């Protein structure tokens, strides 16, 4: 019996490489665009608030400068109001994919999207 590389034509190699390419591109795409399930807020290095991404709510987050308003709705999480001078966090838009960040540096607030698995995912809402 001939070995696979004795049988495979140039067309076969093209097909195999194409399919490999598609699956790797897809894997990369999944890894980078997977929709997150949880919003995690860190202020001053400590996790101050976590909430599921699929439940709409509005939260006021306390920071050294004042309150930062975070809105979670079906489009994702976004900051709608902040006491910081340049409002960069508001212009960062909406975060919904795993790994997305919204940062309000002057108010020391960091909003992060993740997708916890296992025991961690069991928490519905955590507030400290």
């Amino acid at each position, binding site marked *: *019996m*001939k070995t*696979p590389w004795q*049988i*495979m*034509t*140039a*067309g*076969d190699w*093209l*097909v*195999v490489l194409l*399919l*490999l390419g*598609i*699956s*790797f*591109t*897809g*894997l990369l*795409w*999944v890894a980078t665009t*997977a*929709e997150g399930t949880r919003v995690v807020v860190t202020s001053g290095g400590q996790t101050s608030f976590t909430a599921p991404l699929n439940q709409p709510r509005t939260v006021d987050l306390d920071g050294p400068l004042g309150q930062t308003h975070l809105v979670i709705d079906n489009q994702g999480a976004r900051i709608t109001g902040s006491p910081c001078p340049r409002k960069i966090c508001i212009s960062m838009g909406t975060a919904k994919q795993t790994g997305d960040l919204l940062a309000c540096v002057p108010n020391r607030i960091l909003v992060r999207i993740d997708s916890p698995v296992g025991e961690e995912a069991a928490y519905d809402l955590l507030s400290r």
Partner: protein
Amino acid sequence: MTCSAVESAELTRARRQVFLALFIAIAVTLHVLETLLPTPVPWLRLGLANIMTLVALYLYDGRAAWTISLARVGIGALLLGRLFSPGFWLAAAGAIVATSAMIVMHRVAGRRLSPIGISAIGAAGHALGQILAARLLVIQHPAIWQIMPLFLFFTLFSGILTGWLASGLLEQLQQHPAFQKNEADNNTSADDYVERACR
């Protein structure tokens, strides 16, 4: 046993039916035996039954390939007690997309694709059909497409393996007088075979 007074076309058709029946039997056997093997993930299988679909496609035509794949899905599910279960619809959708893709690509590419290339395309089609059915029937959420790349990756290897095995089997079968392609124009080889078989 009478061998005379049989029209050549009739004989060709009867021979084709007998071989297709044999191929279905082998495909069903491979399919059922394969489900007995342990797998890392429930629906990650080798798809050895596809060897017979490929053999039918190369020895005969697209219609023969349809016969093998659809009969394999139906009889296999019947034997395993899965007829009309969700798993059956997934398998049927996978087989339909895979067979369509293999037939079309075989027709388009001709000899430029060996059974390995056709099998790889069939494997990808099988994955696509299964996830499509799963999306519609089992998990009605777009997130199911996220497993597609991983699925495609693993299925590629099983596709190459079954294509290679099919190619080895075809190499043997195509030398056999019963499968000489030119039997319609030049009956000598096939008729010799039949006469030898009849004596």
